[in-house]
């Protein structure tokens, strides 16, 4: 394990730069997606037992500490799209109410001083919760008019949403459990990365 990598010692980096989400360009999002694809390929190799993939994964993560933040933006877009479908057009009050509720949930789940990865995992919990709510409402609304195959399709979709939500909660809980009490802060002084353990 490289001594310069903050991830070696536990908790994912805290204090990594938060990009200006409003100014995130399409190119930047595409670049982040490519990095995640590369990570996915490396993960496959590492899980097959190829040890040399791990340093490369570490390198990508330490080179791009803002990677998790980039996807927080995707979470917001997904959330907005779901709110749009769930509410009537022009019903600004309900839209705002749902947004406030989600914001409160997000704060409660993420807590204070969370790492970017924890923030992203919390966003995922919130979005998947909203997805479950959406499908439950849709199913309840359509139930009287559905044919058996259509009802089965709805049920499958609902099950999938439930599974996604549970897996999001599990991932967040696991990250918190494994990195408990080993907060790592990354400080950059004169382009030199220093990791301090809290």
């Amino acid at each position, binding site marked *: 394990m490289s001594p310069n990598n903050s991830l070696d010692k536990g908790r994912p980096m805290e204090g990594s730069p938060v990009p200006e989400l409003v100014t995130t360009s399409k190119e930047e999002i595409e670049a982040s997606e490519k990095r995640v694809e590369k990570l996915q390929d490396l993960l496959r190799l590492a899980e097959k037992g190829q040890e040399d993939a791990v340093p490369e994964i*570490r390198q990508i993560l330490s080179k791009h500490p803002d990677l998790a933040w980039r*996807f927080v933006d995707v979470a917001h877009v997904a959330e907005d799209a779901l709110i749009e479908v769930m509410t009537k057009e022009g019903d600004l009050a309900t839209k705002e109410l749902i947004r406030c509720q989600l914001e409160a949930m997000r704060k409660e789940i993420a807590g204070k001083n969370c790492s970017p990865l924890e923030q*992203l*995992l919390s966003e995922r919990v919130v979005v998947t919760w909203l997805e479950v709510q959406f499908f439950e409402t849709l199913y309840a609304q359509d139930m009287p008019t559905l044919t058996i195959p259509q009802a089965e399709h709805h049920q499958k*979709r609902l099950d999938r949403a439930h599974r996604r939500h549970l897996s999001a909660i599990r991932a967040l809980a696991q990250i918190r459990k494994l990195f408990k009490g080993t907060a790592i802060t990354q400080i950059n002084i004169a382009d030199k990365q220093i990791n301090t353990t809290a």
Partner: protein
Amino acid sequence: MLRFVHRCVTPCQLHRFPNRSVDMGWEKRDRGGLYYTRSKKVDGRVIREYVGGGTLGHLTALQDAQERLRREEEAALWNEERERLEALLALVEQLCEATEVLYRATLLSAGYRRHQRGEWRRKREPKQ
């Protein structure tokens, strides 16, 4: 189109209408004349039901064609709705995939490994 047909129409006249599905089920008999039949599935087997010719046949043919049209419209609406929802869920799926990759990559790079595709455990350091 068929909803505006008020009088009894023969199969030959129905050829003028764009919805050709109205022609379905008409059989020409050797002794002359047309006979309306329809097929349905009973206990997994296809059974042909003989309805009749003349006014009864034409009325049943129209009724069946309207039912088919209604079902087609319903299926098209259902498909449209499904596609709309799938496009909506693509964003959630993208988010979930990216988060999962980052989560696994972080754990792996922090020295954890997955035990039999389940629990994450700290990898043992080799003894010096």
